[in-house]
């Protein structure tokens, strides 16, 4: 009796898991199907073809968009890690005037929905003349409040004795941060790295506002514009463009799924 229940449970879980995975499998297979076959349920195309990919690549600068996304996401992630840890270090271990205020401000920022500041930020970008620049995509994201709070939380727990002996050895604050704190903070740093990178990689609304030139668009943005604007012409092509965005993520996820889960669930950030 008990084994029957067990089997039932595994069956149910498998069906559930399939509902989450199958759509992506279908998407992947659709990209390899010729036009006639696209709507079919079959997972394996009878005449597999790379036409969709060729069309997609020819019609819009996806290679360029991929590079743009990489540049933007990497820069932001590095900046958040470096600047964020410097700030978190200061807020956790150094005493300065206005520290409690800064703390409160950081937490306050998290309470404000992004849509409130969206338009003013947009007007700011316009006035700075940053429309259609990397600056517009990167600068507003250089500091991340969630990341700073997480790193600060972690830094608070590092024993004071390590800092004291480092100071007595004559180390400056920056050196202490990078040579002592960073190695000890691998867990939180990797969590921050993942959710920052993923957040930036998947961001669409902001690029849609500040970037108009196709060759400057980020991948999800180009994908959206491409699919909506009829540039795709067919489902296969439009899904092929989606694959470019998704495949790197799925590969990374397959290897690092525990880190992904820890990171995104722990920070309260959804893709």
């Amino acid at each position, binding site marked *: 009796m008990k084994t029957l229940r067990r089997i039932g449970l595994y069956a149910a*879980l498998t069906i559930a898991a399939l509902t989450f995975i199958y759509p992506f499998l279908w998407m992947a297979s659709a990209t390899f199907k010729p036009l006639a076959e696209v709507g079919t349920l079959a997972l394996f195309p009878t005449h597999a073809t790379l036409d969709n990919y060729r069309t997609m690549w020819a019609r819009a600068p996806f290679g360029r968009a991929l590079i743009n996304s990489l540049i933007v996401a990497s820069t932001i992630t590095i900046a958040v890690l470096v600047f964020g840890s410097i700030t978190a270090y200061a807020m956790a271990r150094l005493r300065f005037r206005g520290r409690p205020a800064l703390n409160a401000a950081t937490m306050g920022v998290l309470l404000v929905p992004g*849509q*409130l500041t969206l338009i003013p930020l947009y007007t700011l970008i316009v006035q700075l003349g940053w429309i259609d620049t990397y600056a517009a995509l990167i600068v507003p994201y250089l500091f991340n409040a969630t990341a700073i709070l997480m790193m600060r939380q972690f830094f608070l727990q590092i024993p004071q004795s390590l800092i004291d002996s480092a100071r007595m050895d004559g180390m400056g604050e920056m050196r202490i941060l990078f040579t002592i704190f960073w190695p000890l903070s691998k867990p939180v740093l990797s969590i921050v790295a993942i959710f920052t990178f993923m957040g930036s990689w998947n961001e669409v609304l902001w690029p849609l506002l500040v970037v108009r030139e196709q060759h400057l668009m980020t991948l999800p943005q180009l*994908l959206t514009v491409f699919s*909506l604007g009829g540039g795709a012409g067919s489902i296969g092509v439009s899904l092929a463009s*989606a694959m470019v965005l998704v495949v790197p993520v799925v590969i990374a996820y397959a290897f690092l799924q525990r880190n992904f889960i820890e990171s995104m669930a722990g920070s309260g950030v959804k893709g």
Partner: protein
Amino acid sequence: MAAPYAAFLLVFAAYPILFALVLVFLKWDLVTTPVFAGADNMRMLATDSRFWRAVANTFVFLSIHLPLQVASALMLALALNRPLAFRSFWRAAFFLPVVISGAVVAILWSNLYATDVGLINGVLVRIGLSPVPWLTNPSTAMPAIAAMVTWKNVGFYVIIYLAGLQYIPRSCKEAIEIEGATPWQRFRYLTLPLLLPQTILVVTLSTINGFQLFIEPYVMTGGGPLRRTYSIVLYLYTNAFAYQKMGYAATIGVALALIIGSVVFIQRRVIGNAEAL
């Protein structure tokens, strides 16, 4: 050392928040000089049927999304909360859509929901039912989007519930079994009440997420049919990008922030009081 951050906050946080409040009182198209408009924007908003349509749409969305989200996340978490072979595989499977870009998910599901060539209707036809025009029928469009968003995010909330389930002491579970509880009674008297903090979190985050809906309607329906999937943020974006009405868009933004704040506040009160811990 923290100075750069303080400066950043001033420019990219404080200034925008304050300027947003200022913009509410301006009419500006970014090209000509801004014009002081008094309470015009607010008045317009109060009588703007498109805005209130969007608000109503959001409530339709939430009325489907919230119960679906809580129930499915809870069920999956309960199923996973035991020694299982391949446990991390199941968990990874459920969490997969969470890491995928919302734009991709929206495009994918546009195709899944497609009336003629979509996968879902394909299956329905296969089993003898008639196809449903999911995204073109005004009464099914928002529910369809709500189901999709539930699918996308459930893995995230499963993790939250799983964490909560870990905290239920083993002796409590065993004690209630010995006291005579059926599995359902155990769920009702022990598990569910002890998961209240997580449930509050799930509801709150899902609500906030629901109010911030943008890419899904943008990609899947453009706000139709008959404006039934028009979301607040979509309207904000349209006002800024298409109509160049900065002041009005900012007003929508402020209104949205206020709405989110009050709804979340009320929710926490209501659920929190339902079973005061």
